[in-house]
């Protein structure tokens, strides 16, 4: 059945990613290990967006906001730790840290709160309004990051020492890939579990038929809002990892181009497929690296290729690998 085919395609894809990283490491090519980490992290961000967009039917054009907030949470906390300046002195003192797990916790909290606020406003509307409003709020955070001078403003913020993870040397490219890949697997497992749960059933129906959902006694709004928040938290986690990968955060992580790219990952991979965004991110990063390395007209080629996918090849990569989507 299609379900098993999708499962096989997903496992093969993830194994190929891990295998590529291992192979590059064995060949002494840290550049390609980092490329695999980039795929895993961008895929993770896409998995987050997919929960809202592919499964919940909420076309968010503002997920860069959460990606960037996660990145800034990481950068700012590390900056305070590096400069031995407390983040807060009142009402109690809060020090920075250079450990990944607490940084991820803060990133998740910040993104969750931001998503709750943005979602509460934008989910009052639907369709094209929702697209424009999520875009606008992401742009608000982008402009704020540019004009707020404390953390680098337009120039961004460097993370001079990569944050640590208990028991691992995070400067080792393969270890860092392991962390990113582990995060991706956790997010995939959580998403898969979530979609099979009662909440997932409600979220799916909020996309397929909100009238039916309300008639079944379940208010669509809190279901959508919760889905939006979880989606943002996962994307924010990816942002924190991305900041550590690059040793740098800047407003670019918040830009609407990035929101668009996240949507591209989801659609290129196949809407509503759990592992689709990873396939999309892999295709994107590979094209960017190899086509982008060969010609500076790469955005033109990407644009035309995307047009082709939208107009003629719906279903994306996973659709081609695993056949038509099916529900039980």
């Amino acid at each position, binding site marked *: 059945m299609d379900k098993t085919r999708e499962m096989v395609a997903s496992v093969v894809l993830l194994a190929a990613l891990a295998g590529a990283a291992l192979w590059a490491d064995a060949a002494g090519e840290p550049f390609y290990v980092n490329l695999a980490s980039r795929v895993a992290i961008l895929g993770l961000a896409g998995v987050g967006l997919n929960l809202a967009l592919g499964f919940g039917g909420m*076309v968010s054009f503002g997920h860069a906001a959460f990606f960037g907030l996660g990145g800034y949470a990481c950068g700012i906390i590390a900056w305070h730790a590096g400069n031995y300046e407390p983040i807060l002195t009142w009402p109690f003192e809060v020090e920075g840290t250079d450990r990944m797990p607490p940084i991820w916790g803060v990133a998740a909290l910040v993104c969750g709160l931001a998503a709750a606020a943005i979602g509460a406003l934008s989910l009052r509307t639907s369709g094209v*309004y929702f697209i424009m409003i999520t875009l606008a709020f992401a742009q608000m955070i982008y402009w704020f990051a540019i004009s707020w001078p404390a953390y680098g403003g337009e120039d961004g913020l460097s993370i001079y020492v990569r944050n640590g993870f208990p028991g691992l040397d995070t400067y080792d490219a393969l270890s860092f890939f392991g962390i990113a890949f582990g995060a991706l697997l956790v997010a995939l497992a959580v998403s898969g579990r979530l979609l099979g749960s009662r909440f997932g059933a409600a979220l799916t129906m909020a996309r397929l038929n909100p009238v039916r959902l309300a008639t079944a006694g379940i208010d669509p709004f809190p279901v959508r809002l919760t889905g939006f928040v979880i989606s943002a938290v996962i994307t924010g986690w990816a942002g924190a990892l991305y900041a550590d990968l690059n040793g740098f955060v800047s407003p670019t992580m918040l830009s609407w181009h990035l929101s668009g790219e996240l949507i591209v990952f989801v659609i290129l991979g196949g809407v509503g497929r759990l592992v689709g965004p990873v396939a999309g991110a892999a295709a994107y990063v590979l094209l960017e690296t190899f086509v982008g390395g060969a010609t500076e007209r790469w955005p033109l080629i990407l644009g035309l290729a995307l047009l082709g996918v939208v107009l003629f090849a719906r279903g994306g990569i996973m659709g081609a690998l695993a056949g038509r989507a099916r529900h039980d």
Partner: protein
Amino acid sequence: MTLALLVEQILNGVQLGVMLFLTAAGLTLVFGVMGLINLAHGSLFMTGAFVCAWVAGTTGSFWLGLGAGALAAAAAGAVVEMLVLRRLYDRDHLDQVLATFALILVFSEGARWIFGPQPLWLDAPAALSGAVSLPGGAAYPIYRLAIIGAGIGAALLLWALISRTRLGMRIRAGESDREMIGALGVDIRTLYTLVFALGAGLAGFAGAMVGALQSVQVGMGEPVLILAFVVIVIGGIGSVKGAFVGALLVGVVDTMGRVLLPMGFSNFMPPSEASGVGAALASMLIYVLMAGVLVWRPQGLFPAHG
């Protein structure tokens, strides 16, 4: 704050608002009539600016450039509509978003290819150079006043077109009932292409005029596009009147906020900090305005559909 500064800033706000209206009008019409969300609208704005700067630079005539910029944007819009967008009217918004995002990439890289990576510069025409003195004593550039005048003129023409002509009647019919307009025997495909070209031409006209105030470069349409979205959310999707009111509101609030907030904070902060905090908050002001409108009237100030 002096009276002169106040008048100057209000005029700047109105000028920004008028430009936003010209951009938002096409976007909201296209959404109202065809149900299409077009992210590439900012690229048409950019097309107008580039063609205007290039033609004006080659021929030495700003006016030729202005006309060429608007026409080129309209033509580019018509071509894009016929080649790509008309296949998307019946698709969901997600496909429309992705396809028009792809168009932005094509337009931006295309412009970089054709006009080179350096920004172009466009001078305001000699006839509109210089300044007039305002009440309070400040001097205000004539060119900016001309933009306000041209924008209001275009708004009036658009209003007359929609409410007084056969084409406008068909546009209004298309907004309320697509099947009826087919039954009237109107060629709906041609109508859609015309509406799209009209919106694109307005955006190109706006881009061409703004080109003399700033550098003409790739990506210049994108901030305008997002402000136009804010305008449409505030005004109500599909409503040209809403776009006009929303555009002026956004233009004036944004401009005044950037002046007043840093001044206000300097009353109780050191000036260097006040300008930073004030500027950061001012950059968020119109989005706060949008959020306020959403809470108060989720369908915008002038909902076009029911």
